[in-house]
C-alpha cells in the first residue's frame, strides 16, 4: 500500500442497510411517532428507490483517495422477515397464452420499454415515495423521477375512487388504514406501462395495492398487483425496507436518452 495513501470507505448507508437486514424487527410500530388520529406517522424523506449503479467512485485529491460506494438495498434487496410482510412470489402468474409475450418483451427491454426512453414508469414501477407528507384525511407522496417529478395525493377520509377520471399513468388512488398499515388502492391506469421491468405488461383493468408500515425508524413497502385480464392470480412482490434519508429532494434533470440508435446488442439490466 502506498505511503500516506488514505483510503476511506464512505459506506454509512451500506452499514445502515446491513444492520437493518440483520435485525429488521428492532423498534416496532408501537414506538413510532403517531398522528392526531393515532396512525403511525409515515412523514419524512425516504431513501431514493431507483437503482443506482454499483460502481465505486475513487476520488483522488491532495494525496488522499476516497472510495465511495452506493447502497441500493432499498430497491432490489429482499429483506426477509420484515414484520408484517405478506407472502410473496418472485414472478407474476400470467395467463398461459400471454407468457411468450412477456418473455419477448423482457428480452427486448432496451428496445421496447418506454421507461428506457424516459417514459413514465407509472404505479407501481415508480417505487416508494421520496417524501411522504401525512395530513389529516390525506397523504401527499412526492417522487424524484427522471421522466418528470411526480406527486400523488392519497385521500384517507373515506372518499371513493373518482368515477369520471381519465385513465392515467399514476392512476386514481384512495387510501385507508388497516391497523398500523396504510393501504393504498390505485386503479384507472392507461395500459402503456409495465408493472415490472421484465416485460410485465398489464391491461386497463390493473389494480395496485401498496402497503406502507413502519418498522422502527424504517418504512416497509410492499405491492400487490391484480389484473384479471392478464394474470391468473394477484401478484405480491417482496417487501422493501426503506431507510430514512437526510437528503433533501431535488428537481430531476431533464431526461434525454439518445443511446437508442447506438445499441449494438440487447444487453440490459435491472432498474426497477
Amino acid at each position, binding site marked *: 500500500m502506498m505511503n500516506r495513501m488514505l*483510503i*476511506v*470507505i*464512505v*459506506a454509512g448507508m*451500506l452499514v445502515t442497510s*446491513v444492520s437493518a437486514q440483520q435485525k429488521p424487527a428492532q423498534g416496532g410500530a408501537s414506538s413510532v411517532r403517531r398522528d392526531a388520529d393515532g396512525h403511525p406517522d409515515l412523514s419524512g424523506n425516504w431513501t*431514493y428507490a*431507483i*437503482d*443506482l*449503479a*454499483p*460502481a*465505486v*467512485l*475513487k*476520488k*483522488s*485529491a*491532495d494525496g488522499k483517495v476516497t472510495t*465511495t*460506494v*452506493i*447502497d*441500493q*438495498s432499498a430497491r*432490489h*434487496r429482499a429483506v426477509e422477515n420484515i414484520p408484517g410482510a405478506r407472502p410473496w412470489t418472485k414472478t407474476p402468474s400470467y395467463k398461459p397464452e400471454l407468457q411468450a409475450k412477456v418473455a419477448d418483451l423482457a428480452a427486448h*427491454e*432496451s428496445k421496447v*420499454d418506454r*421507461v*428506457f426512453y*424516459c417514459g413514465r414508469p407509472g404505479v407501481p414501477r415508480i417505487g416508494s415515495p421520496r417524501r411522504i407528507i401525512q395530513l389529516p384525511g390525506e397523504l401527499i407522496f412526492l417522487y*424524484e423521477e*427522471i421522466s418528470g417529478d411526480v406527486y400523488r395525493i392519497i385521500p384517507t377520509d373515506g372518499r371513493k375512487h373518482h368515477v369520471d377520471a381519465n385513465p392515467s399513468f399514476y392512476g386514481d388512488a384512495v387510501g385507508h388504514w388497516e391497523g398500523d398499515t396504510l393501504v393504498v388502492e390505485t386503479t384507472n391506469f392507461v395500459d402503456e406501462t409495465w408493472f415490472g421491468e421484465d416485460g410485465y405488461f398489464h391491461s386497463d383493468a390493473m389494480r395496485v395495492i401498496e402497503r406502507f408500515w413502519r418498522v422502527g425508524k424504517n418504512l416497509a413497502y410492499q405491492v400487490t398487483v391484480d389484473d384479471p385480464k392478464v394474470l391468473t392470480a394477484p401478484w405480491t412482490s417482496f417487501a422493501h425496507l426503506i431507510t430514512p434519508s437526510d*437528503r433533501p429532494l*431535488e428537481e*430531476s*434533470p*431533464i*431526461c*434525454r*436518452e439518445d*443511446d437508442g440508435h*447506438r*445499441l*449494438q*446488442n*440487447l*444487453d*440490459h*439490466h*435491472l*432498474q426497477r
Partner: protein
Amino acid sequence: MAKVSVASLALAGLLFTGTLSAHHSPSAVFDMTKPFVLKGTLTKVDWVNPHINIFIDAAGADGSAEAWKFESNPPSWFRHVGMGRADFAKFIGQTVTAGGMRARDGSHYGYMRKFTFPDGSSIELDNGGGGEAKP
C-alpha cells in the same frame, strides 16, 4: 473516519453485483474490453438523465480537432457519491485527461472511466466488472 475494511469491500462486491445505472448496459453501446485515453479541452457538461455527458475537444491523429463525448452514470448517482455538475464544470476550458471505453459504433463517444483534472485530482469509476455485461 472509518478504517479500511476488506470485509466491507467484499460485502460491497456481493451487494452490488449484477445491476447498473440507467437501463441499457454499457456493453450494449461500448466495447468494455477496449479502454482508451485522450487529452483535450473540457468544453461542456450536460447534467441530464439518464446519463450525464461530458464534452471534450481533442486533437485527432492528423492534428485536426475532434469533438468527443463521454457518458457516465445518472445525476442521482453522482449526487449520492457527493459530486455535482460543478465538480466537472469548474474545469471547462482547461485540459483534462479522459479515459474510457469506446463506443462500438466507432464514433467519438466513450464511457467514462477515469478523468484526471489539471489540479492533479482525479475521479475513477470502478464497476468491478460484474455489472458491465448483464444479463
